[in-house]
């Protein structure tokens, strides 16, 4: 006779592991409930389902999730988005409309395409733009080979998004077409705080910029209502030879939201990609930003701003995989952290032997506005090539007392002085955004946040 005795801690561990397994299975179940009739889409979804089933729900014992505790999400049971979709008026989404892109916008409500809110009449005919169902036929065929094909598609949350793939924002900029009008992809979540069910929302974006094309893109996540939801978004961008994409990503989800987002970008020879990523919403957010170089002499510029207060957790995990010579990457990520908030930055840059003459620079700067604010920063450069220029740096600091005094000595209130300095810190990133109205909105947002700081501090 043998007796199996497990220690209490072991059994606690296994119970927690079971709980996570059940949660992931439930997520998968909820995700797969979103409808599809297309056979090829079903095949894609089935494949992703297997990928999810092979994995476990991440914990802080996983190196990649060491500083980002998902237990708050684990305690939030999720359901599929209710059908039919909540109907919103144009007035209701007015605060999110960008004047520069009011006739070049696609709007999705709770992950579902909202045709009555969308308008693309300012865009040239040549552009293929729409959602999965409207772009059936040949236009859709042109995009199909790209969907869910980025490296890293197996990652558990990315695969989860694919398991429920039924709608997506699609943009194809044909060969040689350069569009000045920015394209606004707006994803609105409508979660009221009285709703008993927490929705799993899985926005999806696919952008293909063909050879010698150019486009400016704004990917924007916002909320109407302050309820809880889980936004699990995936954006895939393919940039062909000598094409350029200027991408601004704004994550202003509701205060109780969870947000896990993926941006995967493949860059062909002599292509140029700029990402301005603004993260300021959600109680817990994570942005995976992955750049894959597929040809030489690519240019990559990553600007990021994370703005956190209260008990927010905001994580940015970026990875730049260089595989060819003469690549240039510039990364600047800034975090402004107030109250008890917690920011995480992990920036990987891979420079293997094949990526000779790479010029890579990375800088992470963090401004802590309270004694309880926290940041974990981890630059991670893996360099094998021997003829490269790679720099990285991380700084953590507070507002300089001397700078505050300088402004005070000119008659400026201490609170206004702090606000001005916080704004100045953020400005370096906000100023990179190509759309003036969005720059203004974000600048105001930063200023409002630092006014919150005034109330707290004085």
């Amino acid at each position: 006779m043998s007796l199996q005795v497990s220690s209490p801690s072991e059994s606690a561990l296994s119970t927690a592991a079971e709980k996570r397994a059940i949660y992931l299975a439930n997520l998968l179940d909820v995700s797969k409930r979103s409808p599809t009739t297309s056979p090829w889409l079903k095949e894609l979804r089935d494949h992703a389902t297997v990928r999810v089933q092979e994995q476990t729900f991440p914990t802080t014992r996983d190196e990649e999730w060491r500083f980002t505790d998902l237990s708050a999400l684990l305690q939030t049971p999720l359901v599929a988005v209710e059908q039919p979709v909540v109907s919103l008026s144009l007035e209701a989404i007015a605060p999110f409309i960008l004047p520069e892109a009011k006739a070049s916008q696609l709007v999705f409500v709770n992950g579902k395409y909202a045709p009555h809110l969308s308008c693309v009449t300012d865009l040239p005919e040549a552009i293929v733009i729409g959602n999965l169902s409207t772009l059936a036929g040949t236009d859709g065929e042109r995009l199909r080979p790209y969907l869910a094909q980025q490296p890293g598609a197996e990652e558990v949350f990315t695969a989860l998004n694919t398991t429920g793939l039924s709608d997506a924002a699609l943009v194809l900029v044909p060969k040689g077409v350069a569009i000045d009008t920015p394209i606004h992809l707006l994803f609105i979540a409508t979660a009221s705080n009285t709703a008993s069910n927490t929705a799993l929302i899985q926005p999806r974006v696919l952008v293909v910029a063909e050879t010698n094309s150019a486009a400016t893109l704004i990917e924007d996540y916002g909320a109407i209502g302050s309820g809880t939801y889980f936004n699990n978004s995936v954006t895939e961008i393919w940039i062909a030879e000598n094409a350029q994409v200027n991408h601004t990503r704004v994550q202003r989800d509701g205060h109780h939201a969870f947000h896990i987002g993926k941006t995967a970008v493949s860059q062909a020879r002599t292509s140029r990609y700029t990402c301005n990523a603004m993260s300021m919403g959600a109680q817990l957010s994570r942005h995976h930003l992955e750049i894959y170089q597929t040809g030489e002499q690519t240019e990559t510029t990553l600007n990021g701003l994370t703005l956190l207060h209260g008990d927010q957790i905001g994580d940015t995990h970026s990875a730049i995989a260089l595989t060819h010579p003469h690549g240039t990457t510039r990364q600047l990520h800034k975090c402004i952290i107030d109250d008890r908030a917690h920011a995480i930055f992990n920036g990987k840059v891979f420079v293997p032997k094949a990526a000779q003459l790479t010029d890579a620079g990375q800088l992470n700067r963090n401004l802590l506005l309270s004694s309880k604010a926290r940041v974990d920063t981890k630059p991670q450069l893996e360099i094998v090539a021997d003829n490269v220029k790679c720099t990285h740096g991380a700084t953590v600091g507070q507002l300089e007392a001397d700078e505050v005094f300088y402004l005070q000595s000119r008659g400026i209130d201490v609170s206004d002085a702090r606000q001005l300095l916080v704004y100045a810190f953020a400005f370096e990133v906000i100023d990179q955004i190509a759309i003036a109205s969005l720059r203004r909105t974000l600048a105001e947002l930063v200023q409002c946040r630092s006014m919150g700081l005034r109330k707290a501090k004085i």
Partner: protein
Amino acid sequence: MIIDHSNVILSVKNLTANVDETPILKGMNLEVKAGEIHAIMGPNGSGKSTFSKVLAGHPAYQVTGGEVIFQGQDLLALEPEERARSGIFLAFQYPLEIPGVSNLDFLRVAYNSKRKHQGLEEVDAFDFDELIREKLGIVKMDASFLSRSVNEGFSGGEKKRNEILQMALLEPKLAILDETDSGLDIDALRIVAGGVNQLSNPENAIVVITHYQRLLEYIVPDYIHVTANGRIIRTGGKELALELEERGYDWVLEAAATGVAS
């Protein structure tokens, strides 16, 4: 200029102050009247710069005793921004760089803070632009300085001219220039001094802190004070500067130590 029966702008009595528990000011006494220009000279570490920062209200300095009356009110009871709005201006020895804040915005916010304090309406961007362009001429600055970040990438001379531009805009009752001449070439020095002289009038007063007699050829003081060990040990007219230039500080220090006037 010394004006009979003019108002006392600043009255400092037995002022003592510490930095990190170390006494730096050990009984400063100074009276400044409207219209006057005072120069404070003295060896390094004698308390000149500390004195200017204490008057402006720098939080790193703790006042441990004495009183400062500025235009009839207790200056030490005021926050730094309140001191500025009521008419104290400190031109910094090392003006700070503030990347991300345009010089124009900074100047407008500062100007409007003062207007608000005076119960006047704030000036909008358009009117302010006109006003500031007038003031630029005082320090011979190009309008392109306005769109740049505050002091960022400015040369030493440009930073000091920017300080005087702020002074021209804020029209203080008492301007304290903390080693504004340090590190300036002769052209920049002339511009800075010329600006200060244009701004000097019978209603305000200026305290110039300097190491060098050179500045005092351009900004001619009514009084020169010599500091040592945290207090003023000698006060004289403008001719004292020449004597200090020739003989150094030692004779003043010795005279003060023995109590003998030379």
